[in-house]
């Protein structure tokens, strides 16, 4: 799907802020944007998986992007935002929510503007990045959410991170 949208040339990207950086995701993948509400913890889940929420009757896991990107933790407040995204995984379509600091804008992106991410020495650091692009005077990191989430959920990775969820809260 991401590949398809790259081919099509022009696409819309939802940008959001995390710490001092701006990230972008394909807007067609965004299901919903909602305010923070407390989640139900999942036992034995990785630390960045905060828990699950009720999204119109289905149970959706919530991932903290700050922890995901090794940023320092921020307090969850009324203005903390959850973006609900749908990803394609080996087990089919899944919905999950990411906690971000705030949603910024929807921008039109032409593929020619997207630059490949420079090699930072480790594949892990960049494999979920589709590319970089300038918007106004800032750099936006375009995320490949399929790859990003592939390693996060059980049965899609062999993550040994069994830290109790309590440590996350």
């Amino acid at each position, binding site marked *: 799907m991401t590949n398809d949208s790259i081919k099509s040339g022009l696409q819309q990207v939802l940008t959001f802020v995390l710490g001092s950086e701006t990230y972008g995701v394909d807007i067609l993948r965004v299901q919903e944007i909602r305010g923070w509400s*407390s*989640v*139900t*913890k*999942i*036992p*034995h*889940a990785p630390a960045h*998986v905060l*828990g*699950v*929420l*009720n999204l*119109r*009757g*289905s*149970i*959706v*896991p919530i991932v903290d992007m700050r922890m995901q990107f090794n940023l320092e933790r921020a307090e969850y407040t009324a203005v903390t935002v959850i973006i609900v995204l749908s990803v394609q995984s080996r087990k089919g379509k*899944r*919905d*999950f929510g990411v906690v971000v600091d705030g949603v910024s804008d929807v921008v039109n992106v032409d593929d020619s503007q997207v630059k490949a991410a420079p090699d930072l020495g480790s594949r892990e650091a960049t494999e979920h990045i589709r590319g970089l692009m300038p918007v106004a005077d800032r750099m936006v990191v375009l995320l490949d959410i399929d790859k990003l989430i592939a390693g996060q*959920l*059980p*049965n*899609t990775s062999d993550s040994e991170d069994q830290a*109790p*969820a*309590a*440590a996350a809260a």
Partner: protein
Amino acid sequence: MDLDLAQFHSSFFEESFEALDGMEAALLGLDVGAPDPERVNSIFRVAHSIKGGAGMFGFKDVASFTHTLETLLDELRSGRMAVTRDISDKLLLSVDVMRAMLTSVQRKEPVDMQKVADLQFDLEMIVAQGAGGTAAPAAPATAPATAAAASSAPAAATAPAAQPAVGNGAAATGANGGSNAARWAIEFRALPELLLRGNDPIAIFSSLAELGKLTVVANMQAVPRLRSIDAERCYLTWTLDLESDCARDQVDAAFEWAAVDCELTIKRVEAGASSAPSAVAPAAVVEAPVVAAPPVPVAAAPQVVEAAPKSVEAAVASPAPAAASASTAPAAAAPSPKPADAKEPAKAAGGGEHSSIRVSIEKIDELINTVGELVITQAMLSELGRKLDGSVAEQFRSGLNQLERNMRELQESVMRVRMLPISFTFSRFPRMVRDLAQRLGKQIELKMTGEQTELDKTVLEKIGDPLVHLVRNSIDHGIEAPDVRVKAGKSPTGIVHLDACHRGGHIAVEIRDDGNGLDKSRILAKARSRGLVGQNDVLTDEQVHELIFMPGFSTAEKTTDVSGRGVGMDVVRRNVKELGGKIEIASELGKGSRFIITLPLTLAIVDGQSVSVGSETYIVPLTSIVESLQLQPQSVNRLSGRGEVFSFRGDYLPIVRLHELFGIEPRATALHEGLIVVAEGDGRRIGLFVDELLGQQQVVIKSMEANYGPVDGVAGATILGDGSVALILDLSGLIRVAAGTARAA
């Protein structure tokens, strides 16, 4: 035009199958000698509307057969002929034949014309004889009979060709892979009762075909002459060649239900022996009689089949005038069937006494979800309403109360949409019992109660096979032959009782018979000889009964010819367990047995006890809870300084602290400040330590795996009244995790 009609096919089939079920039930209730005219009428209407529908959609063979049937029924309806045992048997057979025809037509497979032509001939004979018997002119009466006889000859010749066509069709699709995959050579020798017991070889073959390339060759050596064929017996054996890497278990699974009714040899042919399929096929050619020169081009077969109905149709045309001429004037005015008249029966079918509409399950599930959401929203509003002050607040609250009431009703009605009465499953038993009893020479009366008990459609569909198995067992092994019963001082007629009822949020289905019961000493002896039980072990009744659920135990009994139950009981129990139910046995030697299956009403809802730990709420399924209690500090013992145990009814149970297991900050850490929920899973009990008990409620189970993945010790999640999510505990998983943690520590 064809395209326009095609969209109505599926509803025609559904309605027809339903109508046939009704016809079967009416036939079974028909009193020989003094039939209820209304019943005969309703049977007639079924035949008539199927004929009309089939004519309209161009299913000629179906229309032709139902026409003959209708002719006979018209005779019965008008009272010109009396209902005899033979006629009602034939009519029941007609129901089977029509079902088979409609199924074949629905699947666009060639119709097995042999049975059809045979039975049609019999029906015509009955009509002809009946007409002759009532002083009708002899000439017109015999004419159709001879015409029919003539027509059945070509039908007889073509029919055998039609049968292998099924096999060859499979062969054509499945054969000639020639690759190097592993093969399974299967000899499937069905006992004559195979079909009678409700097993369908075609279904078995198609499930095998899912495993890999399948070649089926039917051996028809044992098929007798047409006139002596019993339509309910199975005369065929099959040689199957399955090209697949699948495990033996998977092959066995396909024969699971049929295993008792056939001789089965399954051999693995190692990879590379690619000549195997061709080697199997010629062998079959040699065995098979003239007709079976197997690779009849598949295309040729349907032609042959098509030819048959035409000749039959020609024959059918004549009995109708014969019937008309035989009857008196007013009767002639009565519905003399007009094949071209297609609209009228369609109307009749639409205006039947059950007024219902068909809705897909997805639509209903969507509705259930939406209503669930509404309930949560309503709960949130009520919460808000309580906090409101002011002059309108009171009005607002009373409005909310009304909303809540309506909401509850709405939710209940929506849940009920998915529920169907268990009579949908029970309805197949009268026929099965009647046929099996006849076959086995036993006198059996089937009693059914609680047919209106409703349960979820999914559960209903899955409980059918296990029930059939249990009823079959009761008839086969439970009820004794009439003379044996008389000797034992019982009535010669055995009673099999099927009963369904609600029992505390569950459905209990009971199969009870007054037969010989389980012979515990024999079961025990068998188990001892097989080393399952030590020579000197003393077992309770329950433990002995448990033995018949052991896989393979039953088949061993069967081959040594020890009478007793347990044929495929392990499969029955597995099926029941998959539905979240359980099966119990009570039996007394010489008096009979009771098999009680307890099932959840629905798979979507569970009765749960909410418990809180720290700030989290969990749901413990009520079925897993034994008891809840508060412990005094002195009643807890420590094992080697680590594991805590407490005494519960003579057993020592380990204490599992849920907060430790799930990594939550609890409100209570001292055991006497919280509560212990004694719960069991997989036959093991633990004391689950929680902060407090909240309340019991029914919760809708939502999948965690849809968006996340499996979590150890968690069966799913549910949405609470305030919109938040609570996890539903899976005690079996939890006990496993706890045991693992204990070992690790």
